């Protein structure tokens, strides 16, 4: 169990670094797929079976395929790599400083004592049945709001990307 966690953690961090440093977007997508697979295994170690499934199906299956479609649509015959000079010369240094500040805040949060007050026995935590019951009883408003968010996203995407260019307005 601990060896599994260590392996998944190593894969997670290395693939995340690969996503950020690779020069071509397709390589980033491949790194992101590996990252999400490792994250699904970590969800399984957290007894979140349903989340592990939707991590694979929705994230790796739908969202990353959307990324791949857009990359294939946009970079056909062109070079998507950042070639121009960076207009913000200190961008990298300031980004690292911002990351360290964020890490400080997160470390401050991690330091707190998070042991639960009373250890409840939950043998079926995270199974599909428990998840469905929770989603449709206790958290039904979040479920409805989720559907509304998707509706708004669909309408917005169709309005923006599905529009034909009328006239030359360059």
């Amino acid at each position, binding site marked *: 169990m601990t060896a599994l966690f260590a392996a998944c953690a190593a894969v*997670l961090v290395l693939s995340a670094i690969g996503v*950020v440093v690779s020069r071509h977007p397709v390589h980033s997508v491949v790194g992101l797929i590996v990252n999400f697979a490792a994250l699904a295994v970590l969800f399984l170690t957290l007894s979140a079976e349903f989340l592990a499934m*939707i991590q694979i199906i929705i994230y790796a299956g739908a969202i990353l395929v959307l990324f791949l479609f*857009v990359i294939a649509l946009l970079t056909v015959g062109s070079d998507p790599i950042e070639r121009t000079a960076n207009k913000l010369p200190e961008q990298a240094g300031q980004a690292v400083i911002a990351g360290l500040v964020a890490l400080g805040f997160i470390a401050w949060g991690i330091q707190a004592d998070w042991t*639960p007050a009373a250890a409840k026995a939950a043998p079926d*935590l995270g199974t599909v049945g428990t998840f469905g019951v929770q989603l449709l009883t206790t958290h039904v408003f979040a479920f409805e709001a989720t559907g509304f968010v998707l509706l708004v*996203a669909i309408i917005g995407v169709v309005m*923006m990307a599905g529009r034909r260019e009328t006239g030359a307005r360059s």
Partner: protein
Amino acid sequence: MPLIPLDDYLVLSAAMFVIGLIGFLVRRNPLTMLMAVELMWNAGNLVLAAFARNFSDMSGQVFVFVVITVAAAEAAIALAIVVMVFRRRPDVDVDDISVLRG
């Protein structure tokens, strides 16, 4: 089955979040920036799932579901915007997109 302590998950998630944050600030290709944002979403998801197990409460996992849905909507809308910008100027660099009017 020995449980992995909560702190291990939190440290791992913090590392992943900071990698995503630095990547978002350093890279200038909008597609790579969006993927760095996805890394940050997933770091947050890992924390939520870890706390759900820590407190034996399903609410954290339900919130991960909501976060995944919002991330899908964000990716769809952001990619649509990227497609629109690419139609106007093929070699897109986010440093060049500094005005809202096309």
